[in-house]
């Protein structure tokens, strides 16, 4: 079967090793030349399968539209832009890491985007940091990404969970009651989002009466709902997203819990409401962006353009995140007049996004020293049917300026170490 004549193999191996080492010296310059291509590459390592598939596809639509807009105007620094998409799966961090390395090592991307799943986003951010590649996290919310584990090269478009929790906690305690029961997806996003709501609620007298941790991808929530019911809270806080969010809300309605308790959450996506039967479109939520903003400039153009590219569907917060993430890359390169990651990251410190990209009443900017985008949040309630548009399933009650509810830079515990030049 194998080497019973080890002496020969060793000699052979030695010669081969010599040849390989010699060859590697010749091959190195060739590889360097191959890197300097004319295209600016943006790698997107995001879920296309699993519970976050629908969200991932919308981020992709937004990103593609942004690339199209950029190329129509001559690309980034006069070079054509190419978007490379890899499926990270919805929850397998190992695959996400492998794909990030593939995009960086093989495809030599200039920018890497990802991920919807907070755990995967953190894992990708760590790889990007190791490799020194400019990274934008479009939609993974957990605090640490622009908090304890922040990196000089990682920028985030969506809000932190602490900000989202703070945006809604006051409203809930004021209007619905003080006793909260939490249904928490069991990974970093859920843990920090629950903590965000809890901390903000505690400041205004809110009390936690219990919580259930549900693994990502849970389909049957009945045992958790029975526990929630038994705790007799004023509000059941639902923090599940994607398909998990659809399933838990459907089952809440089947149990009739919405008639006895208030249902609310710190974040919800339009994709989830669209996936629900009309009678399960319930609750009070935070949206991070909404397409009905009649008085905000450029929003209607954006909505019209996305409708053309998505078979008539409106953009969701996810479409917005994907678009803003790609535009962030382009703006960073234009500001720095370079594709050098350090120069680009420095140029984006405290950068205010132009209105045609921020698409929010108060605008948006990247906070210096944290690389976190701070914009508006939309608090409101779900509705079963849109009046003049079947996809208009959310009613915005308050627009909250992120500046007022975000934790301070010191509270985020972000300490960046920049590479020595």
């Amino acid at each position, binding site marked *: *079967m194998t*080497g019973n004549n080890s002496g020969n193999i060793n000699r052979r191996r030695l010669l081969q090793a010599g040849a390989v080492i010699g060859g590697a010296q010749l091959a190195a310059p060739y*590889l360097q030349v191959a890197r300097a291509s004319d295209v600016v590459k943006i790698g997107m390592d995001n879920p296309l399968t699993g519970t976050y598939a629908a969200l991932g596809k919308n981020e992709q639509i937004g990103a593609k539209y942004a690339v199209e807009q950029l190329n129509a105007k001559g690309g980034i620094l006069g070079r054509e832009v190419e978007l490379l998409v890899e499926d990270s799966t919805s929850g397998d961090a190992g695959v996400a890491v492998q794909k990030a390395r593939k995009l960086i090592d093989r495809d030599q991307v200039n920018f890497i985007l990802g991920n919807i799943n907070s755990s995967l986003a953190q894992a990708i951010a760590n790889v990007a940091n190791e490799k020194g590649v400019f990274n934008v996290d479009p939609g993974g919310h957990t605090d640490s990404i622009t908090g304890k584990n922040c990196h000089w090269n990682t920028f985030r478009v969506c809000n932190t969970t602490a900000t989202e929790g703070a945006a809604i906690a006051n409203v809930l305690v004021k209007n619905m009651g003080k006793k909260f029961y939490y249904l928490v997806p069991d990974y970093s996003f859920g843990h920090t989002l629950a903590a965000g709501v809890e901390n903000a609620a505690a400041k205004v007298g809110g009390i936690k009466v219990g919580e259930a941790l549900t693994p990502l991808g849970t389909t049957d929530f009945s045992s958790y709902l029975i526990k929630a019911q038994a705790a007799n809270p004023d509000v059941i806080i639902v923090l599940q997203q994607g398909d998990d969010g659809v399933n838990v809300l459907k089952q809440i309605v089947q149990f009739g819990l919405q008639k006895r308790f208030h249902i609310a959450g710190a974040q919800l996506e339009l994709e989830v409401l669209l996936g629900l039967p009309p009678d399960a479109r319930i609750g009070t939520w935070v949206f991070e962006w909404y397409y009905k903003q009649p008085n905000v400039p450029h929003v209607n153009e954006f909505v019209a353009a996305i409708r053309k590219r998505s078979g008539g569907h409106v953009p969701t917060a996810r479409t917005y995140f994907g678009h803003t993430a790609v535009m962030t890359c382009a703006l960073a390169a234009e500001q720095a007049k370079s594709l050098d990651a350090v120069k680009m990251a420095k140029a984006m410190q405290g950068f205010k996004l132009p209105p045609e990209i921020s698409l929010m009443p108060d605008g948006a900017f990247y906070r210096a020293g944290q690389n976190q985008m701070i914009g508006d949040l939309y608090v409101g309630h779900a509705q079963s049917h849109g009046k003049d548009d079947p996809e208009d399933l959310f009613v915005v009650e308050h627009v909250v300026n992120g500046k007022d509810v975000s934790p301070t830079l010191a509270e985020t515990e972000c300490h960046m170490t920049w590479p020595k030049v």
Partner: protein
Amino acid sequence: MSGFDLRKQAPNAAVWLILLSMPLWIDAVGGYTQLGTQVVVMGLAAMSLNFLLGYTGVLSFGHAAYFGLGAYGVGMTIRYLVPSTGLGLLVGTGVGALAAAIIGPMIVRLRGVYFAMVTIAFAQVFYFIAFRWNSVTGGDDGLTNWTREPINFGFATLHIEKDPVTFYYFVLAIFAVAVALMALLLQSPFGRTLIAIRENERRTRFLGINVNFHIWMSWVISCTFMALSGSLYALLNNFVDPRTLYWTQSGVFVIMCVLGGMRSFWGPLVGAAIYVVLQDYLSSATPNWMSFIGLVFVVAVLFFPRGVLGIFRRKSTE
């Protein structure tokens, strides 16, 4: 055992030539060094499983546990104890070997599907520990914030932390030692005994051989090399997550063995290469890549029941 048989050595030479020259041509064929490293690591894992599956004839469906223990062993050593890659590898491999040695006596009396089921059960125990123990293992988020460290030999330092080619040869060197050890063990009387158990367990028992002890030995050796490959896998990604312990991962290792051919020494490496490369290419092309891998597996089982290498072997014996 004597003399140099060119025909016998040709496959070995071909495998080593391909492995040693991998970084030279892998970019040209659309791959990348990282992928090559992954093939070698997964190849070692599949070959470790095959030590038990192919040569002792015992099917384990829980080898991911030892793969994952190795991975967490190296990750947690570097993260919490000492930033030393060498020590991490030792701890990772040691933890896997220890766990296998303790669990072994509880399962070696079982055979066939019962053995497989109990190995799954033990593996799931480790999976849930890693999944639930958030504060230590990072839970579902995985263990992050650690990276492989350069190895200091006293007289020289090997910088495996940045350059992928250096790391590839580092992994390949460990692979070579591990594979040579496995080959030596299989050539030894001990290895022959394992094959005897595979071929006819009752007859082996009648010869006065302690079958359960030999299966335990084979199990521990197999799991030790598995833990070693898990440690290398963690170093490759600078990352560990609970899915490396999950039972589907064990299934992937079995698929690799069957795909490549469990009766040949290099079969599992070939299987691992096919699986890893297919997964890499297909998952970029379509979100439904799993269906295609399933299809390839079904075709392989239906038409080449002895695996891809089985085709060549049959031809050479005819």
